[in-house]
């Protein structure tokens, strides 16, 4: 009976340690935000909203970027979309890349949204919101500006209501 008792006790201790380890791993992963101002923008590789291509941020390294997270059910995202398209048309010749990330959304709705607002910059689709925690999103829309060195220079937790603010942020990334 004694070896069995020792085995059971060791098994119980191992189980408790394993559960503690799992809990610690989950807690440490849950609070992991990689996208901070002054830090390099985290990499991502997502399917494009339309077609079979992918949108991989690494493809645009060395160029300034504007990364805008949005969804069709988000009212401020609808208000912001025309200004973003206008800014893209105005600044793309200066080398900046705009990437829209449609998140927690229906692909059908998102494609109609892109058509309605005539968005011409690359749009990635992240329905399951894999980037949500990594990019530290708190709501929608949120926009990140990345400079040529790949560092985040601005994180906007609201829509750009004013095109002056939007252009100033883009200029910061282009500088």
């Amino acid at each position: 009976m004694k070896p069995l008792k020792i085995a059971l006790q060791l098994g119980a201790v191992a189980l408790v340690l394993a559960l503690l380890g799992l809990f610690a791993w989950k807690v440490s992963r849950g609070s992991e935000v990689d996208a901070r101002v002054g830090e390099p923008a985290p990499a991502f590789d997502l399917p494009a909203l339309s077609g079979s291509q992918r949108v991989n941020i690494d493809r645009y390294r060395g160029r300034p970027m504007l990364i805008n997270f949005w969804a069709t059910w988000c009212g401020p995202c609808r208000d912001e979309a025309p200004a973003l398209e206008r800014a893209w048309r105005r600044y793309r010749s200066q080398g900046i890349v705009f990437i829209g990330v449609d998140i927690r959304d229906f692909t059908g709705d998102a494609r109609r949204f892109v058509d309605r607002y005539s968005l011409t910059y690359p749009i990635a689709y992240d329905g399951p919101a894999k980037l949500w925690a990594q990019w530290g999103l708190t709501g929608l829309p949120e926009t990140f500006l990345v400079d040529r060195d790949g560092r985040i220079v601005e994180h906007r937790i609201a829509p750009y209501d004013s095109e002056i603010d939007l252009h100033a942020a883009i200029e910061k990334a282009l500088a």
Partner: protein
Amino acid sequence: MRLVVAALLALAFAPSALASERHPTQAELEGELVCPTCHTTLDQSNAPVAIRMKQFVAQRIAAGDTKSEIKEALVAQFGKGVLAAPERRGFDLLAWALPLAGLFVGGVVLTLLLWRWTRRAEEELPLLE
């Protein structure tokens, strides 16, 4: 006798389960799906994405989709996080099996301990006299 009762119960509930699968109601699906932004079931949420999901569910029910088809369509868009309960297949089956296994193991351990304690108490009784 127990087997007969179990079989009768299974037969009694099978048609309603089948009906629920083939002709799901809006209310039951809203209770089984989770809003991805607020993490409550759809029937508890008025978040914009939850409202859109409710519309989608209503459209799919009207189109004659089964409960599984509607859930699969939403999982394809939003991931498994939209399911209020894990699926009863594949790896997710563990979420259902582990608590039952834990209860069974706990019951066995408790029974063994009780058996040992009562036996020890019985052995010690003559000494007290």
